[in-house]
Every structure is written in structure tokens, then in C-alpha cells.
């Protein structure tokens, strides 16, 4: 489903060269729920960004859904992200000037989907995360947990094969964090969606199928 082959990432400034990822090899199967753990600055988010094609490795190759995306141009990469990947972020990244429904519709805007169909799919996604009654609200009117559920609805609205979640429970209390985790597990079990989750929370990581640990840019487990 998702193969990382000899992935390295180096950040360079005029004076410093930082090795963020060091020869990572990883194979994620279809329907797998994988968590990535490690201390701050170990390269978890960088790895997730490379998996999500929003960052490029300095070396190595990414194969997603049997497609080598390294040679894709910017437009093709954007299309690939839109059709195959869903993103969930720690700080939700909702657009405050758009209603919940409009936020969820966002990924579909970049596809050829009619406005009626967009609405239907967004409502369906909100139904799945239990926020159907909040779709006219704006993000500022929601709690942290509700915001993250909106973000999940946005991630699943386009029916992606892979969801990449960057500390989805990081900004939430344990009750809300568990709620979000339950939704992700349900998605994985019922829809068969492959999920890669970066987390700091050992308890959350234990609920996933497989745990990968990073330390100083290298895979240690």
C-alpha cells in the first residue's frame, strides 16, 4: 500500500546541515493501522509529510498505492494527494471563515464533483463522525474534540485509501482523545482505510496494529 525505500531527509541552511530522517525503510499494508512514536524532533512529522507527498525526501523513493510518485510533477502530485490521501492535523487546520459543512467539502472542491454531490458526501462524512447537527456552525463555535471530528470528516469525505494523522489527539483531553481514537479505529475496521498516525501517547499507540519508533531520524523499532 505504502512503501518507503531508503528515505533520508536533510535540512540545509548556509551553515548547518540537519539530518531529519536517516535511511528509513517501511512497508505499510492495506488496511493497516500504524502508529509512529518518538521524542520531539525525531522526524515523525517529516516522515508523515513525506508519506503525504507534501514534502520530498532528499534521498529514497516513495511508492503509494502501487504508484511511484517520485517523478510526478507538482500538479500530478496534488491530484494524487487529493484522490488517495486524507490528512488530520494536531491543530485541526479548519478554515475559520467557512462553516463546518464548507470545511468538510474542501477536498472535493479540487475534484470534478457537482455542488449537490459535494454537499451529500460532506453531510454523510459529518454523519459518520456524529456532527450532522453542527454542520452550519463555524469552527469558533466548536470544542476541540468537535473540531477534530470535523477534520476527520474532511479527511474521509473523498474516500481516501490512506489517512495520515499527525498527533490527532495531541490537543485534546483524554476523553475527547479516546473519542477521536474510536472514530479512527472504526474507520480502519469498518471501511478498511489504512491509517498512519503520529502520536506521543503510548496508550493510543497501543491500540493500533503496529508501532514504529523513531529516534534522531532513524527507525529503532
Amino acid at each position, binding site marked *: 500500500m505504502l512503501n518507503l525505500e531508503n528515505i533520508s531527509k536533510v535540512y540545509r541552511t548556509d551553515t548547518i546541515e540537519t539530518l531529519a530522517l536517516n535511511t528509513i525503510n517501511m512497508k505499510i499494508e492495506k488496511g493497516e493501522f500504524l502508529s509512529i512514536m518518538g521524542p520531539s524532533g525525531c522526524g515523525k512529522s517529516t516522515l508523515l509529510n513525506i508519506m503525504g507527498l507534501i514534502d520530498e525526501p532528499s534521498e529514497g523513493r516513495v511508492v503509494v498505492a502501487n504508484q511511484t510518485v517520485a517523478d510526478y510533477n507538482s500538479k500530478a502530485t*496534488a491530484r494524487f494527494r487529493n484522490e488517495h490521501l486524507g490528512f488530520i492535523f494536531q491543530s485541526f487546520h479548519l478554515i475559520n471563515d467557512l462553516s463546518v459543512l464548507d470545511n468538510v467539502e474542501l477536498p472535493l472542491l*479540487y475534484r470534478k464533483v457537482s455542488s449537490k454531490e459535494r454537499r451529500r458526501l460532506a453531510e454523510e462524512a459529518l454523519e459518520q463522525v456524529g456532527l450532522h447537527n453542527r454542520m452550519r456552525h463555524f469552527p469558533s463555535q466548536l470544542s476541540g474534540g468537535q473540531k477534530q471530528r470535523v477534520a476527520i470528516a474532511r479527511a474521509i469525505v473523498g474516500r481516501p485509501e490512506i489517512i495520515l494523522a499527525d498527533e490527532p489527539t495531541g490537543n485534546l483531553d483524554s476523553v475527547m482523545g479516546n473519542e477521536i481514537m474510536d472514530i479512527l479505529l472504526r474507520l480502519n475496521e469498518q471501511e478498511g482505510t489504512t491509517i498512519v498516525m503520529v502520536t506521543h501517547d503510548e496508550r493510543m499507540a497501543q491500540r493500533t496494529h503496529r508501532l514504529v519508533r523513531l529516534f534522531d531520524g532513524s527507525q529503532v523499532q
Partner: protein
Amino acid sequence: MIKHILTLVWNKKRNNVLMLLEIFVAFLILFAVFTFTIYYLRIYQSPLGFETEDTLLVNLAMDQEMDSLALLEMRQQLRREIESYPEVEAMSFLSGITPFSGSMWSWGNDDNGFYMQTAIFPTDEYYQKTADIELAEGRWFEEEDYTGTYPPVIINQKLKDTYYPDKPVLDSLFTLDGENKIVGVAKHFKYQDEFSEEIPLTFLLRPLHHNDLNSIQIRLLPNTPAEFEAKLNEGLARITKRRDFVILSLDARRERTSRLTWIPLIAGLSICGFLILNIALGLFGVLYYSINKRRAEIGLRRALGATKGEITSQFTLEVFLVAFAGMLLAAVLAVQFPLLNIVEIPANNFYWSILATMLLISLVVLGCAVTPSRQAAGIHPAQALHEE
């Protein structure tokens, strides 16, 4: 996508209202200046109907106590003298109403069965040659006209089109101060100034003894040196025994009169230039600020699959839609001018001005929006999302 951007613009209305107001006010100012500019330029482009090059005008100061015989004699002497100069091609006597003098004589009555108003331009039978006036039909005054049954008049095409559309006018009688016979129609005679609309006008034939023929228009051969004025001056002084007359170039007078309109017109256009610059700088500022504030949103959209082109289009369209709303509101107001006939300017001018203003503002807005929007599209998604 348009619906999405409209929603976004509407939800951000508080942020957009200042820009909308700026465009609204700028539109109205540009519209006003453009309306007058187009109006005056159209008049300026319309034909003058007579020659001003190599032409001198003499304003004589006649002795008020001179009787008609003495006046006739002096004018005959003046004619002989001026025509004797080899540099002179033609000359005519005129009243105080001369081209670009600012003087005007208007006459109105309803003796013709309808109310008619016309400007009057008294002159003699040589004026067509002196001023090179082109006739649309009929003829210019002749010497025989002095002894005809009805005093002859020549009207301009504007008078004919205004009061006698689609009717033959030659040899018909026309009542001004008594009955006159129309012998000719001049194509144009825009004598007030180049920026004044041509008005209905009637040339009257004045005999040489008439006491109001105190001006002389002289057509010189091309390339006549300026020293000729000194010779003319001496000749005129010898005959009139006075030196308080004025000789001036008709071309220079034409330019001087036109300047009175050119200056405010150029000033208005300069203000418009500054205004456009102001809008452009404002838009740049607003957009750069907005893009910096919305880096995370841009990163998110890129992560969700927006291409660089889609980001550029979104930001450009957002700005354009706000500007368009401002233009639309202002255009609704502007269109009331021709609809309610508030200003005596042909309606067409207003519509062209609205179009020109919309085009100009749209071009400026698009021009200013594209660069910052492209910059927005270049934002690296991973970096922008991480900053948040």
C-alpha cells in the same frame, strides 16, 4: 469553485468592506473624469468646419460717432489696402463675434411655428473663402444678395438637423427678425472653442456700412513671415488714424481657448493616475497581508490537493469578486446619470465611461492580484502547516 469563493468572500465581509469601499469611491471618481474626458474628446475630434492656420484677426476700435457713409468709406479703404498686400489670400469683415472670442449672440423665437434658438454670426460675402468653410448644400452669400427680396441667411447642418430634419431647406423662408431666405447650409462651424459642442447657427449677411462690422479676419498665404504684421499694423493705423486696434493669430487664440479645457482635463486625468496607483498599492498591501495571515490555509489547501494554479486563481478571484462588487454598486449609482438625465451629456458617454472604468479597475485589480497570488501558490505546504 466560484460558489466556494463567494461564500468565503461573504463570510469575510468585514475584512473586505474597506477594499469594497475603496473600489466604490475610486469607480465614481474615475467614472466622472472619464465621462467628461470622453465627452470633451469627442467634441474635440469633431470637425471645426473652418481654417485657423495662417489667419489673422484684427479687432478695430471704431469711432462711435462715424455715420454709415463714413464707415462704408473707411471699410472700403481698409479692404483695398489689405487686399493690395501680396501676402493676403482673402479677407472678411466680421462683427465682434469672432472665432474663439468668447462672444456669442443668440436669437430665439417661435415665429416659424415652433420654438427655435440659433446663434448668430454676422459676416460678409467673402467669409467662406477667408475661413474655408465647406458647404453641405446651396451656396455662400453673393453680392447680388444685398439687393434681393429677402435677406439671405446660411444655416449650419446642426440647425437643419435640429429644426428641419429630413426637410428641404434651400430657398425656404426662415423667420428671425423678419423673413430671411436660406441660401446655403454649412457643414460645420464650431467657433466658440474646440471643446464646445456645435450649436444651431445662422450666418447673417452684413453690408459694409453696418455699424457692427468691427473685426477683420485675414487669410494669409502659407509661410507668410511674422514681419507682415508690422506692415499690416502701419496700413491699418494710416487708414483708421488710430493705434488702439489688436492684431492676433487665430491659431494662437484657438490654442489659448483650448487650454482652458485641456488643463482641468489633464489635472483630472492625473488625479485618476494617482488614484489608480493608490488602488494598486492598496491591493498589493492587502493581498500580501492577507496571504501572510492565511499561510496555514494555503498549506492546507495544497495538502488537500489544490494545485498551484488553483491557489493562484482562488486568491485572484477573491480579490476580483470584492472589487467587482464595489464596481457593481458604483455602476448602479453611475447609471442613474444617463437614466435620469441629470447632466446634459449624451447618454452614450456615460455608458462608455462605465465600461472604461470597469475595464481599467479590473485590469489593475487583476494585475495587482496575480503576483501576490502566485506567491501564495508557491508556499510550501509542509512548512506552512508546520508554522501554524
